[in-house]
């Protein structure tokens, strides 16, 4: 039987409940919610309540006067237990009252000592002592961190400190926290060996579009409602940007927009588009995995040949001449003029059809849908891409080729246009320059495998789940961190000085000292020697911007678990302890670099960072802007409101590359096959494509959902979708456990039959707590160390019949039947 909460009735929000602005912190869309809190021994009634509605009656569809059990919890607020309801905000322009399967469970996924939810949240610092983790005070834990760290760094010699730190908004990210960590590692120090939460280096995921002058978030969500064509590449928005799809893309289709989807997999987004727009208005180009670049170059060639270009735009907004930026180690393709791109990117429909595996006529049809003028005017086309190409073959050239199409057709900076990534987390990046990191950035995970690094500070990263070549990484990381654990165990009872000497001895013998800052005890956290508990959005005030650059303040509506703290204040604590230790050691000049962290709260960190660059923006002003916030960049403050920017580049000047002429560049990248090392060989030697991505239910919140019964009942272990005929050949039944293996590693998954999956093409869940897909992803990246998770091939064998939990699972198709 399916999991049921057996909740027949919920407390009613009273009319005088406290109301707080909340932007959902899971995905980049950032839906608006309201958090209602009220004292435990009070309640509303059916005729006196927050909604002013007679709740003794059944409410109709889409009512604002209902909330699900998942939207309710009992949490601590200023030390007291209070009722909490977090429900979608009908007045938010982003989601219009819609809640996703993720965001509408925010309340349930809060730690509650009363209801027992999320007991996995960390509550106090812990250090490795006596063979396990022991709770301790912040001062004790930070002193240990500072003393060990101080032994491996010195002024201008900080390469032995490795740092993994999130750079995003939402979740536990946001401007406050990226500034806190950024100030510590990029201002007080110049740490070069660092990486971001989902990839093995500190780099942009979209270098080429920026180098071409085009910021990757340049439109407004309303452009989907104003456009003629929605062009989706390597994206699955009904699952991963749910309410952007339902509240904006659907309306666009209802307004007559057609849809072109590029994806080797038939996603539920394709099905949903067909449901809304009709199959005749949806063109799914089901290409061979990793061949996007050839498709885009053929589309560009066809559009140019047909003359469906915006010559005035090209003349006014893009450079003349030939090559402006040469191909080199930092640029996997040359960049230059439209004319140069015509030559460099030329690919015929037939050539592309041969590479992509889709019909030349369909490519021609897509070109017409994207660019053929409509009623004598520009055809409005909004282009959206995400991990399918970001984490796919030849990232730089592929994204560049896509932006070429938007530039050639003048579809940037105009209503119904834009060429944007859809995004994962919200954004919330405010840091000192990272120029010292270099480009290409160091490949951190491979350096760790090679024995480099002595101390590793980790901020809400879990390499064990989200890296490539994960099997080898884990083997090495466990060994190196265990060397330090063993050294600490051998010195149990020693003084602090003796303990530090023992740790440093183990480090110098090849060990790694690990400090893990997180909200839960993560998988990589199992290797840590110090664990520091952080809070996330709502447990602190936090600012972030969404995929249309909409900046909002989430108001703190509950206490963090136990003694946990905002990351910015943890970073400040590390800085302060480093300053103290360095001063004690007489390293005065270096110690002085760690001054300037006297922040009492997260607002102080915001004022020290983001506000200094954006002096109009304050907490009070953001609070007043509510869940609709303001779209960045903020240009002023007038009539009591922050003034923002609906879409970028409306003046036709492109600036992201820093060129003073404001001219965009085209990407001159031709097709060159599977670019990353080892991919072509792996494909040749294995039967199945192990495509991978996200699932609606738990993407962006699986770290919490691993302790959520509703989710774990549906997917007790991560699945692999396989064509039923392939299953029959392998002797597999639904729910069987299989091992996926190849030349670099192995992992496991539960078999889920999928009739729309092509033969020999499977789909796995990325980032699962169990069954790490990264185990079978090889170490190959592009020249700028962008991981190539998507192009992975392997073989499959059965290892077990269905486990009991798998018997509860429905194995029916995800496609709606109306």
């Amino acid at each position, binding site marked *: *039987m*399916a*999991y*049921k*909460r*057996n*909740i*027949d*009735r*919920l407390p*009613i929000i009273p009319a005088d409940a406290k109301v707080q602005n909340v932007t959902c912190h899971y995905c980049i869309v950032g839906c608006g919610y309201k958090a209602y809190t009220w004292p435990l021994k009070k309640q509303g*009634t*059916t*005729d006196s309540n927050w909604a002013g509605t007679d*709740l*003794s*009656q*059944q*409410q*109709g*569809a*889409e*009512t604002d006067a*209902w*909330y*699900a*059990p*998942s*939207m309710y919890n009992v949490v601590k607020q200023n030390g007291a237990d209070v009722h909490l309801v977090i429900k979608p905000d009908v007045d938010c322009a982003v989601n219009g009252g*819609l*809640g*996703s*399967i993720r965001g*509408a*469970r925010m309340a*349930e996924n809060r730690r509650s000592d009363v209801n027992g939810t999320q007991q996995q949240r960390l509550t106090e610092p812990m250090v490795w002592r006596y063979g396990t983790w022991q709770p301790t005070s912040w001062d004790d834990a930070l002193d240990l961190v500072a003393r060990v760290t101080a032994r491996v760094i010195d002024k201008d010699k900080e390469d032995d400190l490795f740092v993994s730190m999130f750079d995003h908004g939402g979740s536990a990210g946001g401007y406050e926290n990226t500034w806190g960590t950024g100030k510590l590692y990029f201002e007080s120090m110049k740490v070069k060996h660092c990486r971001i939460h989902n990839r093995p280096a500190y780099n942009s995921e979209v270098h080429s579009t920026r180098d071409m002058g085009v910021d990757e978030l340049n439109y407004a969500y309303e452009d989907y409602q104003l456009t003629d064509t929605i062009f989706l590449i390597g994206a699955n928005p*009904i699952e991963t940007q*749910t309410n952007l799809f*339902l509240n904006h893309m*659907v309306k666009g289709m*209802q307004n007559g927009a057609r849809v072109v989807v590029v994806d080797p997999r038939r996603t*539920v987004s394709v*099905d*949903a588009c067909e*449901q*809304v727009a*009709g199959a005749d208005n949806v063109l799914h180009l089901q290409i061979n995995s990793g061949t996007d670049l050839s498709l885009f170059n053929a589309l560009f060639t066809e559009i140019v040949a047909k003359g469906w270009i915006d010559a005035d735009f090209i003349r006014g907004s893009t450079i003349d001449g030939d090559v402006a930026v040469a191909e080199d180690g930092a640029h996997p393709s040359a960049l230059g003029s439209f004319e140069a791109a015509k030559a460099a990117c030329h690919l015929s429909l037939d050539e592309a059809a041969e590479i992509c595996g889709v019909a030349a006529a369909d490519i021609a049809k897509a070109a017409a849908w994207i660019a053929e003028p409509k009623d004598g005017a520009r055809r409005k086309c909004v282009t959206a891409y995400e991990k399918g190409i970001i984490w796919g073959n030849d990232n730089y050239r592929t994204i560049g080729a896509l932006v070429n199409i938007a530039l050639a057709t003048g579809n940037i900076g105009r209503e119904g246009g834009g060429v944007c990534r859809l995004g994962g987390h919200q954004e919330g990046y405010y840091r000192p320059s990272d120029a010292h990191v270099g480009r290409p950035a160091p490949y951190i995970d491979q350096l760790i495998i090679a024995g480099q690094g002595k101390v590793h500070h980790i901020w809400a990263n879990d390499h064990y789940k989200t890296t490539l070549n994960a099997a080898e990484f884990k083997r090495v990381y466990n060994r190196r961190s265990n060397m330090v654990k063993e050294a600490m165990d051998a010195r149990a009872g020693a003084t602090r000085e003796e303990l530090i000497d023992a740790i440093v001895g183990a480090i110098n013998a090849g060990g790694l000292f690990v400090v893990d800052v997180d909200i839960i005890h993560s998988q990589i956290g199992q290797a840590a020697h110090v664990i520091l508990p952080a809070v996330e959005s709502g447990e602190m005030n936090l600012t972030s911007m969404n995929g249309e650059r909409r900046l909002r303040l989430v108001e703190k509506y509950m206490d963090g678990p136990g003694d946990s703290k905002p990351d910015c204040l943890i970073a400040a604590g590390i800085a302060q302890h480093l300053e103290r230790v360095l001063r004690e050691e007489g390293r005065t000049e270096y110690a002085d670099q760690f001054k300037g962290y006297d922040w009492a709260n997260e607002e102080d960190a915001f004022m020290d960072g983001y506000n200094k660059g954006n002096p109009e923006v304050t907490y009070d002003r953001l609070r007043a802007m509510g869940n609709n916030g303001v779209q960045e960049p903020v240009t002023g403050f007038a009539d009591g409101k922050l003034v923002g920017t609906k879409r970028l580049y409306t003046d036709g000047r492109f600036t992201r590359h820093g060129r003073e002429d404001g001219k965009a560049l085209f990407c001159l990248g031709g097709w060159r096959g599977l670019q990353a090392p080892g991919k072509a060989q792996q494909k040749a030697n294995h039967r199945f494509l192990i495509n991978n991505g996200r699932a*609606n239910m738990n993407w962006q919140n699986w770290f919490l959902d691993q302790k959520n019964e*509703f989710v774990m*009942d*549906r997917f007790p272990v991560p699945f692999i979708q396989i064509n039923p005929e392939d299953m029959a050949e392998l002797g597999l039944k639904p729910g069987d456990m299989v091992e996926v293996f190849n030349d670099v590693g192995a992992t496991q998954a539960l078999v889920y039959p999928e009739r729309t999956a092509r033969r020999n093409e499977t789909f796995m869940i990325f980032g699962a707590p169990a069954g790490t897909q990264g185990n079978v992803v090889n170490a190959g990246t592009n020249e700028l160390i962008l991981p190539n998770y998507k192009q992975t091939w392997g073989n499959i064998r059965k290892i077990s019949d269905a486990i009991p939990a798998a018997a*509860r*699972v*429905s194995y*029916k*198709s*995800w496609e*709606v*039947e*109306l």
Partner: protein
Amino acid sequence: MKCNRLVDSGRRQFLRGGILGVAGAAAAVALPAGQAQAQVQARAMVDYPSSKLANLADLVVDVPMDIGYPDADSPGILLKLGTRVEGGAGPDGDVVAYSVLCPHKGFYMSYHAPDKTLNCPGHFSRFDCEKGGQQVWGHATQNLPQFALRVDDKDDIYAEGADELIYGRLSNVLQG
């Protein structure tokens, strides 16, 4: 969305209490015999009415019967699946009943017999009638409310409870 895939106006009316005008000819609408009692007592658990929905002889495999439970304003279906399922009632263990309001946004769902699912026209969620209403794919944050059934010695089928909160009401048995 195409209009014919949205909730039709008659079914919308159902949500406002107009059940008598729209229930199909074959529908046996249960009246909430126990509701008055529930309204006057404040107890820790909701008191569900025991409502006669139909007789086993009225059911045809894969042809859902419209019902209202716990009261006429809460539409559901009574369904004979034809194969025994966990939680199924009756001698064949194959009779189930569910709310048909999608727990996401309350749209009225339709039954798809070939794979025995309930499907939402609003945002495309779908639920498995053979797996206790497990959401196969969708936006709801709970599985579908299933009604507990009892079959007496005359083959009369009674609904006697629900296992999730029904969309549009903060108490499964309306109160106040």
